């Protein structure tokens, strides 16, 4: 018996996941005008989430999706602030408090970035534990970042934008996680919804409804 039969080959580090399997970088990561790339990517995420994430490459760095998400969040936050200002009965206290608004303007992007990293970490761990995903953290981060960046601008729509964006973000996140991680949709749904149900994520679902209730109450108060 030769030595080659007695000893297994030495272990090699696992290969990095490549863009193979027909996966390509999204429009945001390709050359072109930034506004056009943002709109095209957001449109595809919102209207064809399954095919977008099925075709999305799982590598390409954290930077481009991070920038996309921050742009979307800032656009959504600023747009929401401006639409609140234009309401006949005014906005929330924070919108009318210049100091609070300035603090929020600085803190929102920073907290969003931190939240994206931690949120995708939680999502990734749950996808590994619940769905047995073999993909990397980068895949989870890209799914969450493109979802958040695309749905956040919906906050601009008065009253219902928040709740529509929140619910659609959950739908997109489930479809995106299933396609990008190549796991069953049911298990992806458990991984996405578990933290949403257990830990205040209901705010995503009910925040918009509460907003509408508060605005409705304010409008009713002014009318009486």
């Amino acid at each position, binding site marked *: 018996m030769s030595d080659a039969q007695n000893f297994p080959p030495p272990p090699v*580090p696992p290969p990095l996941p490549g863009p193979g399997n027909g996966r390509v970088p999204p429009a945001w990561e390709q050359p072109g005008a930034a506004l056009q790339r943002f709109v095209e990517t957001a449109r595809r995420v919102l209207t064809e989430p399954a095919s977008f994430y099925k075709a999305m490459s799982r590598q390409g760095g954290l930077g481009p999706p991070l920038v996309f998400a921050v742009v979307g969040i800032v656009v959504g936050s600023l747009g929401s602030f401006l639409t609140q200002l234009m309401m006949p009965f005014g906005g*929330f206290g924070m919108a009318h408090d210049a100091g*609070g608004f300035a603090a929020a303007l600085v*803190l929102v992007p920073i907290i969003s970035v*931190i939240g994206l990293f931690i949120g995708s970490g939680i999502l990734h761990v749950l996808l590994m534990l619940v769905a047995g995903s073999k993909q990397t953290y980068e895949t989870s981060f890209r799914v969450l970042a493109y979802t958040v960046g695309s749905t956040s601008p919906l906050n601009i729509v008065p009253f219902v934008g928040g709740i529509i964006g929140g619910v659609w973000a959950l739908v997109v996140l489930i479809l995106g996680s299933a396609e990008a991680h190549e796991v069953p949709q049911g298990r992806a749904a458990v991984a996405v919804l578990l933290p949403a149900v257990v830990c*205040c994520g*209901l705010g995503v679902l009910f925040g918009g409804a509460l907003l509408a209730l508060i605005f409705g109450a304010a409008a009713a108060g002014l009318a009486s």
Partner: protein
Amino acid sequence: VIAGWRRLQPGELDHERLWMLVGIAATGVLLALRMGASLPPVVCPFKLLTGWPCVGCGTTRAFVALADGAVGTAVRLNPLVTLAAGAWLAWAGYAGIVLLGDFPRLRPALSRGTQRRAAWTVLATVVATWIFLMADGR
């Protein structure tokens, strides 16, 4: 569990650096908020709707207590968050050492059975925290 130590491959995500930076940034924001920047109070929609605390209730106050060095208070406010903060501190110690020394990184490989046991442990910890918060009368 196979605990493997290896060098990062070119282009591989550096988790030690990433989570160290995220932790430092989060701590910075927490301290900035503690030092006077004002944000609206966090309203838990789950508690608002059901009257019960969610498993994340007390997170902000627990972090503030930790920033003040009141670990006991933080445990009482939310044991899960305090545990997570402790885990991050341990991670930061490890990450600091391997980053400064340019040492190989720990990359454990978990079997499917270990993953399943880990999932049940996480679930049990979350449920235990939730029961504690409800029993504590939040």
